[in-house]
């Protein structure tokens, strides 16, 4: 029990970023980064390999800098829990072009699958709503994921996707942060020099 989901994380992420077009994607460290990489490496993905708790705020800085693009932050429950204050900061800033999808397996998956706070007591969608997010959702099946996908790519939506805690093979996208940042800026056309 412990509030566990059944969704296949790779299938969920493949759905969310299928034919991504100009979508700007930031992934939180650990499995979310592997999932986004496995769905297809591209210049407009910025993968985090550290900076735990920072994914949502990177998304905010990017969304404010690029108001005509949509930003999707894909991260895990542990990463989102560490940066939970960002939900209040983002709600205060109210960017219309930033969405967050939390891949919630109720586990700290990288470190031995210890149960996380979402597996104990915490509902991150309710936290986001209480912080002032107008649109929040929770998905437990692929039909719900499919329904949320276009919204995550066009609205200011916070979604919790209840994935299975089952481990999947690691897929390792590029990990040099300076390379990833430079590649991203060049693809966006904002690189200097």
């Amino acid at each position: 029990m412990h509030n566990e989901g059944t969704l296949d994380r790779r299938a969920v992420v493949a759905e969310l970023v299928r034919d991504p077009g100009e979508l700007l994607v930031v992934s939180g460290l650990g499995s979310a980064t592997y999932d986004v990489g496995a769905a297809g490496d591209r210049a407009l993905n910025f993968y985090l390999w550290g900076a735990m708790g920072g994914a949502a705020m990177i998304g905010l800085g990017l969304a404010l800098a690029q108001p005509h693009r949509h930003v999707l932050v894909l991260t895990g429950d542990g990463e989102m829990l560490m940066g939970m204050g960002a939900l209040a900061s983002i709600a205060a800033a109210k960017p219309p072009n930033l969405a967050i999808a939390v891949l919630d397996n109720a586990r700290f998956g990288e470190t031995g699958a210890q149960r996380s706070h979402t597996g104990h007591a915490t509902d991150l969608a309710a936290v986001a709503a209480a912080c002032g997010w107008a649109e929040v959702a929770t998905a437990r099946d692929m039909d719900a994921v499919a329904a949320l996908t276009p919204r995550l790519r066009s609205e200011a939506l916070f979604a919790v996707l209840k994935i299975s805690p089952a481990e999947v093979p690691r897929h390792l996208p590029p990990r040099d942060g300076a390379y990833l940042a430079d590649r991203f800026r060049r693809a966006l056309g904002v690189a200097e020099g």
Partner: protein
Amino acid sequence: MAEFDRDTGTAFWPHALYDLLRGAGVSQFAYVPDAGHKVLIDRSLADPDAQSIPLTTEEEGVALLAGADLGGARGVLLMQSSGVGNCINMLSLIAGGRFPFLTLVSMRGEFGEGNPWQFPMGQAVVPVLEAMGVICLRAEHPDEVIPTVSAALTMAFQSGQAVAVLLTQKLIGAKSF
């Protein structure tokens, strides 16, 4: 030139500093409020072309500024010295991504401090920032603020460095208790 506006009792340099930052293309002002940054915060709130972003903890600002740079924007993190300690691991992001980073730190726990709880972090600001690869510059006199922040802007946004300007208690005054 007088250092203070006689009508309001406030220093002139914070207004010149805001104009300097905006003139250098800084558009995102992120902060956990501190009295030492009051003018910059108020000016950013009143500026329709700037984004004024209150944070719940200072490390959010480190991540925010990395995101701003990914999107081609420039930002500054305004914080008190006590907030520096909240940023340490997140500065890995600045180092790893070689992001430009500019922060203005209003100091506590040094010259004339009357609250003993401010000393441990205030005295640790420079060693911990330097340990994480952030260059520290100090401004102790009103005349030093603009040239020091000008230098920091060049170092951050032309040379891609991480730079902190410490606005010292000698400059901004110690809080009275």
